[in-house]
């Protein structure tokens, strides 16, 4: 079990994260927040790249800083900007990272072959990565993160920049890998979370806003989300969420905090509604969906 106790991270006078308390057991945990909310800071603390200013992070009851390489042996990490060696093949690259992870050569070779097959890169196993697409590179990235069969798999914005087909393939892969391990997924792409996450962790104003299942988070807006083809008729104060074209009409989806008895149709809220509602005052709301 991975536990965060009152974790705070400060950079000088700036507080990047404040009093975060979280508990991770197996399953897919999605960190949902707009850019700059502290997702990457949290991920970097979980991967020991930076350390909390206050509080502690415990892995099976032991502080991860003290566990040192024992903890690093338990994690697999795919950074947001995944660098790779253009002049090497995925197989060579995996062997190299396996060595850094302390895996002996024979086992590394077997594991590299197994993972290359898992991420469907067998046909380019020995090709230089120079000409690989973004999706192929991400698959190499997930393969390297799995080399040491980690108990904690940490993925920072893994689907950013992928086309819809690659993204679906990637989600399925993560779903497969999430059995018997903690998968922590940082993203601001709501559709990724709706499909695969068991838990959603939302951050706002550098603090923990909620840590719950997608269904129970959606429940918080139940009865407050509506759709109408004539938004001008809605007199009550409301927040416009999304708009779409349907049969030549503009259907507006909106959230209304006060009791609404108008003609607009009540609909079941989804995570995107929650995201737009919760982060309505943020400047960098991402509404990217497949």
């Amino acid at each position, binding site marked *: 079990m991975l536990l965060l106790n009152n974790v705070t991270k400060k950079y000088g006078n700036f507080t990047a994260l404040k009093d975060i308390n979280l508990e991770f057991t197996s399953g897919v945990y999605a960190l949902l927040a707009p850019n700059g909310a502290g997702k990457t800071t949290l991920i970097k603390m979980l991967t020991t*790249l*930076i350390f909390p200013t206050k509080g502690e992070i415990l892995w099976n009851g032991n502080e991860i800083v003290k566990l040192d390489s024992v903890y*690093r042996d338990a994690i697999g990490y*795919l*950074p947001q900007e*995944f*660098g790779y060696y253009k002049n090497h093949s995925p197989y060579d690259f995996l062997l190299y990272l396996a060595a850094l*992870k302390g895996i002996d050569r024979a086992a590394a070779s077997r594991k590299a072959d197994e993972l290359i097959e898992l991420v469907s890169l067998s046909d380019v196993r020995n090709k230089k990565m120079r000409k690989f697409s973004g999706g192929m590179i991400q698959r190499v990235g997930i393969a390297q993160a799995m080399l040491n069969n980690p108990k904690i798999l940490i993925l920072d914005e893994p689907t950013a920049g992928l086309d819809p087909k690659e993204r679906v393939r990637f989600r399925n892969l993560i779903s497969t890998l999430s059995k018997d391990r903690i998968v922590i997924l940082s993203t601001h792409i709501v559709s990724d979370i709706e499909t695969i996450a068991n838990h959603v962790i939302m951050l706002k104003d550098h603090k923990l806003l909620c840590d719950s299942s997608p269904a129970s988070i959606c429940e918080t807006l139940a009865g407050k989300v509506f759709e109408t083809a004539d938004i001008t008729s809605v007199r009550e104060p409301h927040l416009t969420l999304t708009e779409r074209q349907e049969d030549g009409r503009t259907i507006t989806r909106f959230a209304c905090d006060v009791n609404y008895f108008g003609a607009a149709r009540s609909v079941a809220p989804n995570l995107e509604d929650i995201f737009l509602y919760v982060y309505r005052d943020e400047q960098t709301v991402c509404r990217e969906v497949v």
Partner: protein
Amino acid sequence: MTDRQKDASIDHILKQGLVKPPSLCQRVREILSMLGFGFIFWDMSYSICFTIPTLVITLLSLLFVPERFSYSAAAGIAPMLFLLITFFAETSERISGLYELKQTCRYTVRQITAVRVMCYAAAGILFTGVVAAIMADTVNEFFMLLPICLSMLFICAAVQLSALRLVRNGWAVAVISACWAAANLAVCFVVGEWWESFLRSVPIAIGMMAAVLSAAILVLQIKKMLMEANQYAIA
């Protein structure tokens, strides 16, 4: 402390699961045996390709140094192999997108860098010998010049390693290399004659002591870099 108390303490320690941390030599041996030189210097061929011609040009420049400045020129050029290779290899390592990923592995990029710095320093010692041999006219002069050059190499390496340990910025290594070159040129222009006569007046014993002391500082820095992976964040 009685034997019984000692036994109780040992039992307590064993129960806690404490293990003796490996020594510097054990850690280096472990990394070398696990990774081998192939993975320690993985994808560094470009850096070596840039270093060799730059080094040759630097060595050729020694031929044009006036004899009255031979000591100060040798002292300035002695760490050049070390500075150039760290400049090309470690800067590219630090600005690459893989740096963070490698820091999360069992053998962190900081630990591997420490082992590489040891290798650079070993190559630097050979280079220093060559520089001292080129600049010295007699055997006695060689033995006077060598410890001075070695001191410069080890001081430079210790400063460079401290920067690698403490500063995350990818260009810190390049800045130190540039500062070394600039400082040497400044010394030559400002107090050139005095600096040369000072270096010539250093007795062999004092030079040797300075070399041993600076080597000890370098070893301490290497040990810190290898052992305290959990003390300094990288971002």
